[in-house]
């Protein structure tokens, strides 16, 4: 860590400013060449400029050495690969009759698509993620383990250690959270007042759609981070079952994120995160980067889930039967079942649109026998279950932390475990509740209403069990930050969950669909089910990872700034939604009288962002000045806390054995694991 604190910082900051200026204005200039209008404040250019700035920052801070890092190599190769793929496609097109090579954004659209794919693969090859596999194919053997460099460098290189990968995931997730949040702040500022202020309509739509998808990818990486770090530790395994696939799953998400953001430079897209055709067929080339980016990120989910399920099934410690697994492991398995299978459907849906745009296969063109509704079915077959992917690990964290802080067993452990599976499995058959107004088969709306409402039952079981856990527990006086976030998570998720059934009954949904009520609903569920528990997890396991404890005072400021403003934000959204505020509009009718509401919502959005900024400051300060703590900070029974922090390379030097129940706090003489 200390490398980051040396004067490199100063160099880094200077390079950051330089990179930002160069990146944004360079892109604005390229745009000038293409469109003959020069706009130095173009939002897209600035966003991509900030990507360049991040790179120059690290280059400046780390000096020459940085270019040896896998991350930098990978990005360089992705750039070259994109060019190579693009030129290859243009060359092939030049051979065909009646094809004009090159287009508005330099390459023509097919060339961009091929370039994007080749670029992503080049990233992986260039970073060195595929090296071992190439060797295996050639029949060479490779060492079982790789040695990671010391210090911060290991986080920028290809490591096979699940703990390093977990941190890499989490860091990337926070970076994307900042991007997504920044987009939200931009368009929220635009919405503060009716009329168009400083964004144009297409940029608004692009920011809004990217906000959605970048946040979703951020969540996927965030849960992958927590699961990667924790699950092997909880199982007592030295690593995941397939460390190389694990590294692959993480690294493929990096070019995916770059692709997603690069859609801004290629004209953006105006479809929102759902990317419905036929609108998507008319969107600028940017939508292709969006599709390809999500498609690539999907492989990260699929392979990560595969790895996790195998690890849980094969690598449990001695004595760890199904109902003695930590509850978080149950949640992780349930989540992974969804990611493993359903993700293929969004991949397919996007693939079909990509092919329709590039090759003209008319899957969604009604005039040629296509069906736009088909896309929605394929899309939601993934995108509904995925909302449970977001929350199950979060709810697992809640269930994991409550007993530790309340010193009381988890009430109804088995019921909570089965509820995770139940939510995941039932969640597979409810997807069409997003399509109640779409003109789908009339008759099927009712069974989908039933199945959707059924999800309330296992979710309810979780809530009731938490309540019973909390009931009569000795709740600590000082309220440690992780516990605060757990309580807020329960509360906010309750708000989100209870706003679900009105969407599920068809006739009320016909009023609610595509309004800010839905926007309020899903921000509550995602924050309550993911963001709040995720922060709880960060505060809770930070001492395990870095052997330093985050500052409590800043933590509490973070909490008390974030929670009320966030709750106000979403309840306000629900209110104006009910009154007639449509979603995905850049401007609204002043006659509706929403101006004041929107202004308040924008202010609360800024407060939420400020609280996250405080969290970042806390992390930075702690890493720099924090006192080392190596012990069982929270007095937990869980195995990872029974050994000193930080964890050594292959976790436990001797395998442990499970001899009791995981959450028997307060039961005299009981232990969970024998080290």
């Amino acid at each position, binding site marked *: 860590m200390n490398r980051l604190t040396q004067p490199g910082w100063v160099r880094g900051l200077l390079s950051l400013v330089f990179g930002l200026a160069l990146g944004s204005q360079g892109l604005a200039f390229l745009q000038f060449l293409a469109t003959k209008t020069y706009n130095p404040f173009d939002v897209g250019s600035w966003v991509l400029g900030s990507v360049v700035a991040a790179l120059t920052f690290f280059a400046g801070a780390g000096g020459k050495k940085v270019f040896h890092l896998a991350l930098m190599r990978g990005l360089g190769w992705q750039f070259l690969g994109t060019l190579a793929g693009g030129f290859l496609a243009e060359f092939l097109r030049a051979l065909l009759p009646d094809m004009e090579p090159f287009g508005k954004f330099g390459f023509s659209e097919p060339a961009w698509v091929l370039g994007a794919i080749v670029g992503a693969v080049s990233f992986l090859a260039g970073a060195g993620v595929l090296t071992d596999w190439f060797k295996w194919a050639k029949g060479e053997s490779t060492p079982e383990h790789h040695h990671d460099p010391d210090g911060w460098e290991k986080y920028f290189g290809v490591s096979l250690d699940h703990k390093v990968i977990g941190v890499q995931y989490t860091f990337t997730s926070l970076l994307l959270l900042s991007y997504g949040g920044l987009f939200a702040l931009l368009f929220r500022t635009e919405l503060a007042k009716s009329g168009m202020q400083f964004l144009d309509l297409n940029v608004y739509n692009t920011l809004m759609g990217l906000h959605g998808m970048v946040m979703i990818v951020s969540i996927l990486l965030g849960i992958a981070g927590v699961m990667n770090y924790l699950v092997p530790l909880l199982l007592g395994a030295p690593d995941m079952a397939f460390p190389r696939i694990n590294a692959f799953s993480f690294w493929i998400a990096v070019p995916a994120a770059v692709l997603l953001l690069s859609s801004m430079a290629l004209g953006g897209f105006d479809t929102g995160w759902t990317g419905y055709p036929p609108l998507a067929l008319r969107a600028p080339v940017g939508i292709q980067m969006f599709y390809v980016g999500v498609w690539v990120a999907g492989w990260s989910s699929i392979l990560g889930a595969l790895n996790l399920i195998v690890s849980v099934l094969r690598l449990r410690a001695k004595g760890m039967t199904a109902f003695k697994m930590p509850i978080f492991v149950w949640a992780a398995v349930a989540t992974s079942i969804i990611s493993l299978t359903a993700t293929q459907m969004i991949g397919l849906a996007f693939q079909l649109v990509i092919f329709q745009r590039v090759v003209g296969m008319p899957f969604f063109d*009604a005039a040629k026998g296509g069906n736009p509704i088909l896309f929605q079915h394929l899309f939601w077959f993934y995108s509904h279950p995925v909302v449970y992917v977001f929350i199950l690990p979060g709810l697992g964290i809640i269930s994991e932390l409550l007993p530790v802080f309340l010193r009381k067993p988890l009430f109804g452990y088995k*019921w909570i475990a089965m509820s995770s599976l139940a939510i995941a499995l039932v969640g597979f058959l409810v997807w069409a509740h997003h399509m109640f107004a779409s003109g789908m088969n009339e008759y099927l709306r009712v069974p989908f209403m039933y199945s959707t409402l059924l999800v309330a039952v296992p979710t*309810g079981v979780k809530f*009731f069990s938490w309540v019973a856990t909390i009931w009569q527990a000795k709740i600590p006086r000082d309220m440690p930050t992780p516990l605060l976030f757990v309580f807020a998570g329960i509360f906010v998720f309750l708000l989100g969950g*209870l706003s679900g059934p009105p969407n599920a009954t068809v006739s009320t949904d016909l009023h609610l669909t595509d309004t800010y009520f839905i926007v309020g609903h899903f921000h509550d569920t995602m924050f309550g089910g993911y963001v709040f528990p995720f922060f709880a997890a960060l505060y809770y396991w930070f001492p395990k990872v870095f052997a330093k404890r985050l500052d409590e005072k800043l933590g509490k400021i973070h909490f008390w700034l974030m929670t009320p403003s966030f709750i106000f934000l979403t309840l306000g959204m629900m209110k104006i939604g009910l009154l007639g505020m449509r979603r995905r509009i850049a401007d609204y*009718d002043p006659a509706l009288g929403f101006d004041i509401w929107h202004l308040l919502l924008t202010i609360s959005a800024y407060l939420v962002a400020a609280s996250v900024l405080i969290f970042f400051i806390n992390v930075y300060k702690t890493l720099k000045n924090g006192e080392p703590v190596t012990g069982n900070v929270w007095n937990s029974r869980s195995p990872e806390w029974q050994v000193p922090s930080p964890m050594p390379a292959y976790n436990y030097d001797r395998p442990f054995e499970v001899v009791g129940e995981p959450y028997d*706090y307060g039961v005299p003489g009981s232990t969970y694991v024998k080290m």
Partner: protein
Amino acid sequence: MRNLKHYLAIAVLIALVSVLTYLGMVNANLFPVEASAQAVDIDWLFNLQIKLIAFFFALIVVPIAYSMAVFRRETGDTSDSEPIESNTPLEIAWTILPLILVVWLGYIGADNLAKINAADPGALEINVVAFQWKWRFDYPQGFSSDTLYLPVDQQVLLKMTSPDVLHSFWVPEFRVKQDVVPGRVTDYRITPNRLGDYKVRCAELCGTSHAYMEAPVKIVSRAEYDQWIADQTAIAQANAAASAANPDAGRGQKLYESLGCKACHSTDGSGGIGPTWKGLYGSAVALSDGTSVSADDAYLKSSILEPGAQTVASYTAGAMPASFSNLTDGQIADLIEFMKSLK
């Protein structure tokens, strides 16, 4: 016995908080006025939902808050809480009861859906075309309108379709929403029951100007409606007669209305998403690359066929759909003839 006291206390508190939450929500002015018979049914279901929400909100929040207040750890106490593991009958109860509840709610929901879908065979049928980014209402009398006039207390059946992308028909005061899907006709049944002016607001993201895709709805008395129909029919006939005099421009005007050019181009010099057509023909048009061209037949034709090729200064390139490139030469000639007539 000590516990009984606590259970009684939270039971009372839950009841209290449920009622207060419910009252708070129904008095928070959450809904626009009800302007259709369907809205009345839907709001009934909303009210039921609010009751459930209030109850379950209280059921979860009250015991947690109560524990925080009452069972807080004494300062200096470092012992563990009393270990209560699990209680299977209780778990079964709070699985089965919500299960029964949601099945019942599903049944209520289906019943409610059936009510709002109930078809009146005598419903007035109007065709609706939604396109980027305008609504057009085609009345059975053979004219179209930008405003949806509806007689009060009669069911209407809107037959909706779109030539381009998905849109969604929503009048918040009617509650019901229905997507408009290219390549098929979707139905929207509503029985307006309150006089007044409302707006259709497109509720499905349909591209750049989705935010502005609104159209007025007027619910008027039967007599007013009949009068309006008569007026419109007369105007339509007069127009037909006028265009009979200059048949090409007349056909052009029809195309102007039916193709949707009207959505963006005005004929009276006022602004819009695209430049006005008034006085366009023969004028010098300043383009965004700094040059200027004369708006002759060739230029106009290419502007229609390839809107992206030359962009008029201060307008967004690509805002005009490229989907008009399949117009025939004859249709384009008619359109240009119509532009010529707009001096």
